[in-house]
Each structure stands twice: as C-alpha cells, then as structure tokens.
C-alpha cells in the first residue's frame, strides 16, 4: 500500500518490509516507554472504575487501552486490537502505568521456568484439546 517513499532511500524500505508509517505521531514522538517490562505476553490490568475524566491529556487510544485491559489482556493482544505497533502501545501503556491507571503482571522468565506442574498441565491440556 506504500506510495512514494519519503526522503532518502533507506535500507529497510522495500516490499518485504511493509508500509512506511509514522507510528510515533500518536506518542508525540516518544519512542521509549517511560516504564520497562512490557513483555509481549505481560498481562495488563486496568484499575477498576478509573476516573479517566481526570486525565484530559490522554488520547482516545489511551482510553481504549484502559477499556480493553479491564479484564486483563496481554500486551500483544492490546496491540492487535488497536491495530497499533507494539512499540507504540508500550509507550501508551507507560503513560497509563505512571498514572496508576493500569498494573502489569509479568510472565514467568527463562530464569524462572514454569514448574513441572505447569508443564504437565500444558501437556494434559494440549492432549485434551
């Protein structure tokens, strides 16, 4: 869907690389989240009954994120639901986290592999599907 390439040629820009976008417009140019640790499968949980009216600076996308995270939703699903790049969603989630509007539940790490009960539950669950 790309039309004219803006500016100089760039090594990333070709047909395999997808459309040229300006994804960070929504974040005001910020490319880093103010909080680390939004793993792709980290669960984001919105604060119950948040008073979003108290935060007029938030974008509609912020508000949608809070709504979607009401039941607890992984970062990657939030990005897919909003049709936004993961990097952009992380910046927006950082804004919400710093305002106490969401909490983040990290997944288990490689250094803390799921215990054997969990692995067994996965195997049993897959067999039962």
């Amino acid at each position, binding site marked *: 869907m790309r039309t004219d390439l803006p500016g100089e040629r760039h090594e990333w820009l070709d047909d395999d690389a997808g459309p040229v976008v300006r994804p960070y417009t929504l974040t005001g140019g910020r490319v880093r989240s103010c909080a680390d640790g939004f793993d792709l499968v980290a669960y984001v949980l919105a604060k119950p009954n948040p008073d979003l009216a108290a935060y007029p600076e938030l974008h509609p996308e912020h508000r949608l994120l809070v709504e979607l995270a009401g039941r607890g939703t992984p970062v990657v699903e939030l990005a897919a639901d909003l049709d936004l790049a993961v990097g952009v969603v992380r910046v927006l989630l950082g804004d919400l986290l710093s305002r106490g509007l969401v909490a983040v539940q990290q997944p288990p790490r490689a250094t803390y592999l*799921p215990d054997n009960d*969990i*692995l067994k539950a996965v195997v049993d669950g897959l067999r039962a599907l």
Partner: protein
Amino acid sequence: MDSVRYDADRRGRRVPIALKILIAGGFGAGKTTLVSALSEVRPLQTEEILTGAGVDTDDISGVETKSTTTVAMDFGRITINDDLQLYLFGTPGQDRFWFLWDELAFGALGAVVLADTRRLADCFPSIDYFEQRGVPFVVGVNCFDGSQRFSLEAVRQALDLDPDVPMVLCDARDRQSGKSVLISLVEHVARQRGEAVSAV
C-alpha cells in the same frame, strides 16, 4: 488443577500465566500455517517498528520526520485452562529482522523449528539461534502434500542435530499434528529439567 499456581493482582483478579512458544523456520516452511492451525482464534497480527535510529536512544529530535517501517508478527493463542495460556509467535522469516527474535525468545518456553526438506538449509539459522541461546526446541519436518522424501534420521544428520533434540514429522495444516509437535516440545522442556511429564 489446584496444583497450578496462578497469579492474582492486588485487587484479587486472577490473570492467567502466559507462556510463549516460538514457531520458527525458513520462509515458506509453514510457520503461519501452523500458527493458524493451532490458534483458537483467528491468528492475529501485530507489528513491530523498524527504525534506523532513535529506538536505542532517548533523543527524540527528528523522529517526526524519520522514515520508519514495520514488520508483521503472526501470533495465536491456545487456552489450556483458566490459569494457563499458550501464545504462539511466528518468527519473522528474514534474517535481517532477527533483532526482533531476541525479544520474542526472552522468557520463551521453547521453540518449534519447521523444516522443509526441499529447502533444508533454510532452517539452519533458526537452529543455530536457539542452540546458541539455550532455548529448548524441537524440529518439525513439515510434510508438504503428504510426501516424505527423506527419513527422519537422514534429516537429523543433515541438520547435525544433537541426539536429544526431538524430531517429528508433521503437517502444519493439521491441528492434531501441530498439537503433537507442541506436546513433544513441552515434554522435551520437561526432560531437560530432569522431570519427565509424559506417561506415554
């Protein structure tokens, strides 16, 4: 399933544990097909942003004019139970997008490397990647059109695989077949930890 721990947030709402499994292999090896066959929802797509500079710095000047582009990642979900979900991520197929893999691989339970015997060498980089990082993986030999051209042993030799890395024949289009591949991966992970989970 009371033996499975779950996490609860401060307000007592339970969220499942989400485990990542990567689906890797060369371009056209069937990664997206396998994710589609296994996912309980229509496979979703998300994008990660590629940008020449700026991501690694806090200097945002000029970002508004910077050309960026995105790489799509396919992912799917399998709900095991109320407390456990598997997320399957199809890895970007091109070598130059592999910097995305480090994030995908971080904390992953393990990986499935899909091998296409017509282009076996295409999966070498995936195998190297997981071997070097100590990510447990299994090799699924995707039998396109039901044809099996080589024996598993011949493929194992060609891939120079460690003897303990499981290899399974599979059909990436078939859900049952895909499930078997995932089961062999999880059993492999458990064996590596010295705790066999299989009663079979």
